Each structure stands twice: as structure tokens, then as C-alpha cells.
């Protein structure tokens, strides 16, 4: 800046113009429009219309490419020394409030779980003032968690098709809850908990590595964290396969299946995001030599995100699998 600076003031870098927003918008809108058209085709129309999925994929490609260029630009600006301490604090605040918004997204799904388990479920089963509907509509339905029989199954017969608006909600044969103490070692969620909790430790050790300027330590422990993330995701894929192939637990398995898959599914998606973010930080450090002991925000932000995903898992483990 040619402007006269008051003593002690570092100018705040305001980029002149940027094409990033427009390209990101094009990518986002194409992918969303393609997805909506494709999903509607599946549900309401002819399933065989690849055009919508092509539009979605093009949109996603544009979006991801834009994000790549956008982040690269921000990183280069930082390396070029354009970011004042104040600007760096803006990034910190941005990341913090982004994670807070993610947290609130999970609150909606946990809220649904608590409401169904503690209020709506018992009412459907005939408890309390709300319980009169049981005799009127859902005769024979008894509420338990995990749900062993959906209200539709309890009513049974041709009437149950009508009452479910031609939906088909068939409860799972086996739930994901902890079954036998003797077979604890075969219970995937326990292993996933151990894996994810350890990964929070490993990412912290990696952080200490970069703080000490020990790049070898940083690479080793960050690589281990990414590996643990990948193992977690593989185990979750195995778990989903088991659920669909052997347990009869699907998205159609009533509210138990709905909450189970939506909570673990969105968490799994966030683990995928976190693993990708950490993996990119690893590549940045290994190939680009990025990060110094006092400037490594890309890694720090990813590790905060990772800790957040870990905390969500603790709640998931508690409320979806154990309790």
C-alpha cells in the first residue's frame, strides 16, 4: 500500500478482485441442480436419465477445482508474507465459527434422536397423554429401543400399507447395539472408538512435532493419523455392509435405521473430509515444504476439525451404540 501507515499498523490485505466466487457459484449450482434433477428422476420419473448426473459431476469438478485454486491462492499469499497477524486471526475466527455451525448441524440430528427415544416413541407405544393414538392407529405397537418392530409392522396386513402411505418400514433383525459381552472384540464400534480416540492423540503429537520444528516427527504422526482415519472409514464401510447384508438394517428400518444411518453417515462423511484435509496438509509439508514452527494454520485448522469429529463420535458411541 502506498498509503501512509500510522506507526505500528500493518495493512490488512484486501484482495482487489477475485474470480473465485463466480466459479465456485457455477460449480455449486450445477452440482445441486444436477443432483436435484437426478434424485427426482429416480423417485418420480424414469430412472435412466444420465444427463442430470453428468451435470452434477461437472458441477462437482468445477467446484473442487475452484476450491483447489482458491486455497492455493490463499496459501501463496501467506507464503509471500501478505497476511498480517490481524488477517491470520480472521482465519482463526472463521474456522472456529465454521466448526460451531457444523456442531449445530449435528445438534439437529441428536435432537431428533432424543425426541424420538424419550418422547415420541413412548407416546406411540401408548404412554401418557399422547398415548391414545396407540389404540386408535397403532394397535399392538410396543415401543423399545432399538426398535424391534415398527408401528407399521405391528398393525400388519393390508391396512398397514395405507397407513404408511405406501412406505415400507421393516425393522432390522439385529440392531447395532452391544450384544454379547463375550464377543466384545468382534464389535466394530468399539474398535472405531479406540481408533478415533487414538487419532486425536496422534494428531496432537504431530502438532507438537511441528511446534518443535521437527518435520520428521510431524510427518510420521500426521501420516499415522491419516492412516487411522482411513482404517476408521474402512471399518465403517464394513459395518454398513454387515448392516445391509446380514442385519436387515437399512434406511427403511423405521426411525432406528433413519437415526442410525443419518448420524453415523454424516459423521462418516465428516471423517472423510477431515482425513482429506489432514492428508492435504501432509502432502503440503512433504512435497511443498510448507509450515514453520510458528506458522502452520492450515494444519492447525484441520486438526481442530479432526478433534471436533472425534468429540462428535464420542457422543455417537454413547447415544447411538451403547445407551
Amino acid at each position, binding site marked *: 500500500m502506498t498509503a501512509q501507515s500510522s506507526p505500528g*499498523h500493518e495493512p490488512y490485505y*484486501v484482495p482487489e478482485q477475485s*474470480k473465485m466466487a463466480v466459479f465456485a457459484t457455477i460449480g455449486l449450482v450445477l452440482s445441486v441442480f444436477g443432483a436435484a434433477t437426478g434424485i427426482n428422476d429416480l423417485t418420480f420419473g424414469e430412472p435412466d436419465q444420465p444427463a442430470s448426473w453428468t451435470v452434477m459431476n461437472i458441477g462437482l469438478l468445477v467446484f473442487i477445482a475452484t476450491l483447489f485454486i482458491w486455497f492455493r491462492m490463499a496459501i501463496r499469499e501467506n507464503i509471500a508474507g501478505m497476511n498480517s497477524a490481524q488477517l491470520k486471526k480472521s*482465519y482463526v475466527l472463521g474456522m472456529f465459527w465454521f466448526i460451531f455451525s457444523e456442531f449445530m448441524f449435528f*445438534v439437529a440430528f441428536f435432537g*431428533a434422536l432424543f425426541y424420538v427415544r424419550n418422547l415420541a416413541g413412548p407416546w*406411540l407405544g401408548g404412554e401418557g397423554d399422547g398415548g391414545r393414538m396407540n389404540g386408535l392407529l397403532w394397535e399392538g405397537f410396543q415401543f423399545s429401543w432399538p426398535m424391534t418392530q415398527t408401528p407399521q409392522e405391528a398393525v400388519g396386513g393390508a391396512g398397514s400399507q395405507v397407513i404408511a402411505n405406501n412406505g415400507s418400514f421393516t425393522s432390522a433383525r439385529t440392531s447395532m447395539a452391544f450384544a454379547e459381552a463375550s464377543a466384545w472384540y468382534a464389535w466394530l464400534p468399539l474398535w472405531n472408538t479406540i481408533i478415533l480416540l487414538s487419532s486425536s492423540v496422534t494428531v496432537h503429537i504431530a502438532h507438537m512435532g511441528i511446534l518443535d520444528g521437527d518435520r520428521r516427527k510431524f510427518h510420521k504422526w500426521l501420516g499415522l493419523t491419516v492412516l487411522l482415519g482411513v482404517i476408521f472409514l474402512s471399518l465403517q464401510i464394513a459395518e454398513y455392509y454387515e448392516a445391509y447384508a446380514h442385519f436387515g438394517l437399512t434406511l*427403511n428400518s423405521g426411525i432406528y435405521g*433413519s437415526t442410525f444411518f443419518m448420524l453415523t453417515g454424516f459423521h462418516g462423511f465428516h471423517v472423510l473430509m477431515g482425513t482429506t484435509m489432514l492428508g492435504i496438509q501432509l502432502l503440503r509439508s512433504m512435497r511443498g515444504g510448507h509450515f514453520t514452527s510458528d506458522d502452520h494454520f492450515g494444519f492447525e485448522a484441520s486438526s481442530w476439525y479432526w478433534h471436533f469429529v472425534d468429540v462428535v463420535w464420542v457422543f455417537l458411541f454413547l447415544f447411538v451404540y451403547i445407551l
Partner: protein
Amino acid sequence: MGDHAHGPAKGLSRWLFTTNHKDIGTMYLWFSFAMFILGGSFAMIIRAELFQPGMQLVEPGFFNQMTTLHGLVMVFGAIMPSFVGLANWMIPMMIGAPDMALPRMNNWSFWILPPAFLMLASTLFMEGGAPGFGWTFYAPLSTTYAPPSVTFFIFAIHILGLSSIMGSINIIATVMNMRAPGMSYMKMPLFVWTWLITAFLLVAVMPVLAGAVTMMLMDIHFGTSFFSAAGGGDPVLFQHIFWFFGHPEVYIIILPAFGVVSQIIPAFSRKPLFGYDSMVYATAAIAFLSFIVWAHHMYTVGMPIAGELFFMYATMLIAVPTGVKVFNWVTTMWRGSLSFETPMLFCVGFLILFTIGGFTGLMLSIAPADFQYHDSYFVVAHFHYVMVAGAVFSMSAAVYYWLPKWCGRMYNETMGKTHFWISFIGFNITFFPQHFVGLAGMPRRIPDYALQFADFNMMSSIGAFIYGASQILFLYNVVATIVSGKPVSDDKVWDGAEGLEWTVPTPAPYHTFEVPPKIDPAHAHT
């Protein structure tokens, strides 16, 4: 890093690629006005249909689409973006910052809005029609019985939420990080304070709305049963999640309006705002309470009595901090050297009419009484008193107040005052009678009504056409000001105005406060 004195780029690229908070604020403001006209035209169709009893102009299904889109466009397209636009223009200038904290993301937050609304409006032309389940989109109307276009509605809501979250993160980062040295939190202008708290509310509840529409999407297309009792879910669950978003949402709309009024009333009373600290605490208290009152929108849904009582008393508590605010505004005017230019007129109109809306809100908060009022035109009258006479009036006030600073030209005062009086009269003719027909039992969202409601409905419709027409005068006045208004050159356009935005030249240069200003430590607050 360009030259200090550089101006905006030329042509369309100025707007597409801009990172300037003033450009982005301008785009938000024009976009929201376009949406205001669109949503307003939907309202005109509604009032034309209701001009007389019986079916007049449109099919009932289309009428439902009009009420739905009117609500969605006004809430998400007109009111919210207008205040975001105001935040973009004013917050950096009020706190002495060179721009918003994250300028490129700021541009993105804006540019995803127009396509989202294009997608939402395009549902009108889709097979099965646009969503017709009301702006609250209760399940199962919005799931089992929804038209296929609901999928596009869901994704439009996702994009709007993304825009709001990014915009809010930007505002929080700006306010927390970019204040000029010496401007402590308790020295910030009240508009900045109300927006900081609003942004927090947005980051907290927009993801919950995203969760709600995601559950809808899954229920409609992928066989889940969140809102279907046959699978063990509950349609009422939708209402709980929606209103956990929806109640803070109404404060998201009104808190920035409070901020605007708290800037303008002191300026035209030529007195500092009375009770600045209590204003801040009252705003925070309202924000906190907004999270624990959501079920007062659903008293008749069959909640346990303990729930009804809790939500009733919690809701009534909101009257306390809101009362603090109203009394503070009135006390600011008390023994002030008052003058009634157009911005002040709109603020006084706000003060009177918003208070009426607040009182009807208090009536609605009483659970046993609400059993009578629920889903009647009384509710419609109530929330239009807070949404239109509250948010939209304060937005009009804000435009008249800051327009000379933005474009360096003075609007036509006579035309402005005419706009106010026609709006004020038209608004009250529209919505005051709706209290009566509501109390007498006329249900909302129905295209036909019993004969005894005919006179009041005709009055309402005439009032609505008057109010609608007054907005064209507003548009004309603003455009005429920008094109050929009388130039003003004083930094301080209004003699009683306080704040950093009045220390920069008029019109405000493209870049302001590239070097932070000095805040006079003796100044109580700006």
C-alpha cells in the same frame, strides 16, 4: 495491493469479481429490493383473490403456492439479505475497518443467492407446481404430499443457509477482529452490536434448518421415517426442529432492525441513546431466550401440559428485554430536540407499530388463549406488524438515513415523507382489520372465507394495494436520488448523527479506513 486512490473496476466485472464491502452491500440491497417486489407481487395476488368471498382469480392450489412463496421470498430473499447488505455497507465504516474480514468469501456469500432464488422461483413452472405447503413447510405436507419440485426447494434452502452462515462468520470475524484500536465492545454502535448477536444466532440455527430439510429429503427419496409415525418417527418432530430454527429466525430478522432504530432515533433527537448498556444486555437476553421458546408456535399440537407451561412463561419473559428497548427509545426522544425527517418518521412508525405487534405477540404467548387464535388471521396480523412495520419500516428508515452518505446526493424529502405516510396508512388498513377477522375465526392460508368477513377483507386488500403502490414511489425516489439528487458534500449529512461513518467524505470513497482511525477515549460510545 493497488494504489491507494484507485476506484472500482469498470463494467460487469466490477460486480462479479468484487471484494469491496460497499459493492457487495449494494448488490445485496438491490437484490433484496428485487425480491421484495417479487414477494410483494405474490402478496398482491393473494389480496386480489381475497378481495371478495368465493373463488375469484386463482385455483386453490396456486393460492397455496402464492402464500408459500410469498413467505419464503420475503423472509429469505427480501428481509434477511437487505440487512446483510446494510451490515456490509455499514459495519466496516462504523468500526473503522478497511473492509470485511474475509472479502472473497463475502462475494461468494452474495453470488450464490440469486441462483438459489432462481431455482426456487422456477418451481412455479415445474410439473406439479411450486411448493404449496406454507413457508413453514410442515411434514407430511412437505414430504408425503409434496409436489416433485420440493427437491429443488430443499436444495435452494441448503444454498440460502450456506450463504447466511458464510455471511455471518464474516460479520463475526469482522466485528471481533477489525475494530479500530480503542473501540472496545461497549463503545461499538448499537447496529454493530445487534448484528454481532444476530450473526451468532444465524450460525447457530441455519445448520439446524439444513438438518430439517435434509431429513425431509431423506424421507421423500430414501425411505427414512423421521416424520412418519408408521416407521416410528413423528410429524411433530419436524415442527420442533423447524421452530428451533424458526424462533431465533424471527429475532435474526428483527434484531438488526432494532440496531437501525437505535442509530436513527438518537440522531434526530439530538441526544445520545438512552441506556446504551441496557440495550446491549437486552439484545443478548432476547437472543438467549429465543432458543428456549420455540414450541409456542405449536401450542395446539398436543404437547404435555408441562411443555405448554414452560414455553408460555419463557415466551412471556421476552417482553421484559423488549420492553427495556422500547422504553429506551422513547426515553431517548424525551426532551430531545426532535425533528421528523423521513428516517425519523419511519422509526417513530416502527416504534408504535412494532409495539402493537409485540403486544399481540404477548396475547399469543398465552397458551390457553392461543388455542383460539392459532392459525387465524390474528396471527397473520401479528407477524406482519413485526415483520413489515418492524423490519421493513426500519429498513426504509435505514435507506433514507444512509443513502446521502452512500451516493453523495440527497433524496427528495417531500417524496420520502409521502412514501412514509402512504406506507403507514396502507399498512394499517391492510393489517389492522385482520386482527378482527382473526379473532372472529377466519383461518389463514385459505383462498375463500365466510361472508361475514367480506368487508374487512376488502379493506385489507385495498390497503395492500396502497402499500404496494407506495413501494414504487420508494423505488422512484431512490433511483432519482442516485441519478439526479441534490449533491451533498458535508461529511456529516445529519447534524445530530454520531459515529465513524459520518467522519468519512460524502459520498463515501470506494475504500475507507485503510488506516484505522483514532477513537477518542473520552467518547462514551459512537
